[in-house]
């Protein structure tokens, strides 16, 4: 059994734009997607997610590099000869066919006989909770239902890999949440490798085993949700996933895994880092708002005096903007544990903020 369901080796894709210049849609991307994994590609619009997915499906050919599906090099293989199926963003159901014909299309093209086809179509529709909808037409179904049909149409073929391009993008929030759980359940049930493209970080974090964060055609970081969130390897990832504070400074000392960074206003920040840092190097220290407290606690290495500039109450939490020495601002998030939701400080108050060495990370950019 090959180790990877899909492998991209140094894949680039360039498009000639109508204006004559060249668009670097995907740049030197290498990815290894494991068998049975729920793998997400996450990034802002235009970062090359769709292009990457389309290259795996065979709708686009890489300008450079190779794509392997279960160790087989895809080369120029046509889409209809690849062992993958796609769920398109706007479903792309065949409007002139019934739901049954839509779902059975792949099996028909593969030459599966009619009796078996009907059985499998029925099972697939049951799996996506649309039993008995065979005779309907796509236009008679709601967006959510069409989405399920698109899923059934792909899964009925038992592909080695299922590609999904922002499949929930057109659904409203409530339905989207429902479908997220449903997709996750389906993936566990069928055990097929899912490659899921989304620009919604929450969606990626909830569903994925691993996430590749993309920007400007490059993959910046690959890892499970907690790793991406807790140990971002660059400023873009830290900023794109969740909320982050960034403090610029200079490395003063490195001891074992702790870096001492001098910030503006002469403040010293202690941060954990595995990077090979040298004294005097310019770096950024990042720390998540929820990992900073206004309440004192034992063992906090980073303790700074500051002044509250702004308070935003959002129900579960309250956000404070705290101004530190050297005109640096930090966002602090405190949970509203107090049943009366009394804020810990008011605008203008002098406060002290606390955070752990382990909560702060050093970034090179």
């Amino acid at each position, binding site marked *: 059994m090959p180790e990877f369901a899909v492998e991209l080796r140094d894949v680039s894709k360039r498009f000639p734009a*109508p204006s004559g210049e060249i668009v670097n849609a995907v740049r030197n991307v290498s990815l290894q997607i494991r068998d049975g994994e729920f793998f997400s590609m996450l990034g802002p619009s235009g970062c090359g997610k769709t292009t990457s997915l389309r290259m795996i499906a065979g709708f686009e050919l890489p300008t450079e590099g190779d794509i392997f599906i279960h160790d087989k090099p895809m080369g120029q293989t046509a889409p209809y*000869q690849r062992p993958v199926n796609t769920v398109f963003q706007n479903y*792309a159901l*065949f*409007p002139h066919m019934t739901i049954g014909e839509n779902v059975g299309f792949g099996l028909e*093209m*593969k030459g599966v006989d009619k009796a078996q086809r009907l059985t499998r179509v029925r099972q697939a529709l049951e799996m996506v909770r649309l039993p008995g909808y065979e005779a309907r037409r796509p236009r008679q179904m709601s967006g959510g239902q069409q989405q399920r049909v698109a899923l059934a149409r792909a899964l009925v073929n038992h592909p080695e890999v299922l590609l999904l391009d922002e499949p929930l993008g057109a659904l409203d929030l409530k339905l989207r949440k429902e479908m997220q759980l449903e997709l996750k359940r389906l993936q566990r049930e069928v055990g097929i490798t899912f490659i899921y493209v989304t620009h919604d970080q929450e969606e990626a974090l909830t569903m994925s085993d691993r996430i590749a964060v993309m920007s400007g055609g490059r993959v910046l970081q690959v890892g499970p949700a907690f790793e991406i969130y807790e140990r971002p390897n660059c400023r873009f990832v830290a900023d794109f996933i969740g909320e982050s504070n960034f403090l610029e400074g200079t490395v003063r000392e490195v001891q074992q895994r702790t870096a001492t960074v001098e910030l503006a206003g002469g403040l010293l920040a202690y941060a954990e880092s595995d990077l090979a840092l040298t004294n005097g190097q310019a770096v950024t220290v990042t720390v998540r708002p929820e990992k900073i407290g206004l309440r004192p606690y034992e063992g906090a290495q980073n303790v700074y005096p500051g002044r509250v500039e702004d308070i935003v109450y959002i129900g579960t939490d309250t956000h404070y903007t705290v101004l530190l020495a050297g005109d640096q601002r930090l966002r602090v998030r405190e949970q509203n544990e107090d049943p009366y939701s009394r804020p810990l400080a008011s605008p203008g108050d002098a406060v002290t903020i606390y955070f752990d060495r382990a909560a702060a990370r050093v970034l090179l950019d």
Partner: protein
Amino acid sequence: MTKRRSPWVTLAAILVYVFLYAPIVVLVIFSFNSSRTNVTFAGPITGFSAEFPDPRTSVVTASPCGPFHWFCTLAGNRELINAARNTLTIAFTSTLISTTIGTMAALALQRYQFPVKTFSEVSLYIPIVIPEIVMGIGILTLFGALFRFLNASLGLTGDGRLAMGIGTVILSHIAFSVPFVTLVVRARLQGFDKAVEEAAMDLYANEWRTFWRVTLPIIAPGVLSGGLLAFTLSLDDFVITFFTTGPGATTLPIYVYGLLRRITTPELNALSTLWIALVFVAVFITQRLERRAA
């Protein structure tokens, strides 16, 4: 919210309809005329008789077909039957070929970028705006020169020589129909979602099967209305046919024109009535298809 319509609008609408349809109504009525000269309407033929009246009778009072006398004599007119057969042969053949070519052209223009695209688009639509008579002269000149050259260089003589005939008419009809078909099919393709073709290919259908199972069924209403347009254009084309036809390739419009120069009888009106009926059916089908596709 309903708005009161001005009576002038209603009046204008009625006038437009009268203007459009009065000639047609008169034409149809005169096809039942009992007077052979057909200058004035002398009332319909009311009587039935066992035999056809002498073809020289000036006022027909009775016929085996009753009021449909002129339709029956029409059926016995060999020249006319021949012209009708030619017309339909030409219309069907040229429609089939021009619809195929026009659809392919529309698909190519829709989905591919190529260096001479703008040029090919414009050049495709120019024949629509060029006066038909110019096209006719052009085609005539082309075929004339081509046939002279081929006949000379291949040493063809007598009946073996290439000459104007049904073949050249079909070719010229294809030539003027293709732009119209392309235009109609392209309009249909505007809303075509390319993703469904990718979906088909994703589901193991190769290019060929994708076209027949997905693309064509979806654009079929556009292709059919393009085809019907080509068919009606071919049916009633006079000018270009006039320039490209040859012995034995007389079409209905050419034949009718020939008759007009001699004498007009209600038979001609009967022929036109049938013709109009055919066109109405074609238009009706087109409308139905358009509505179904919408």
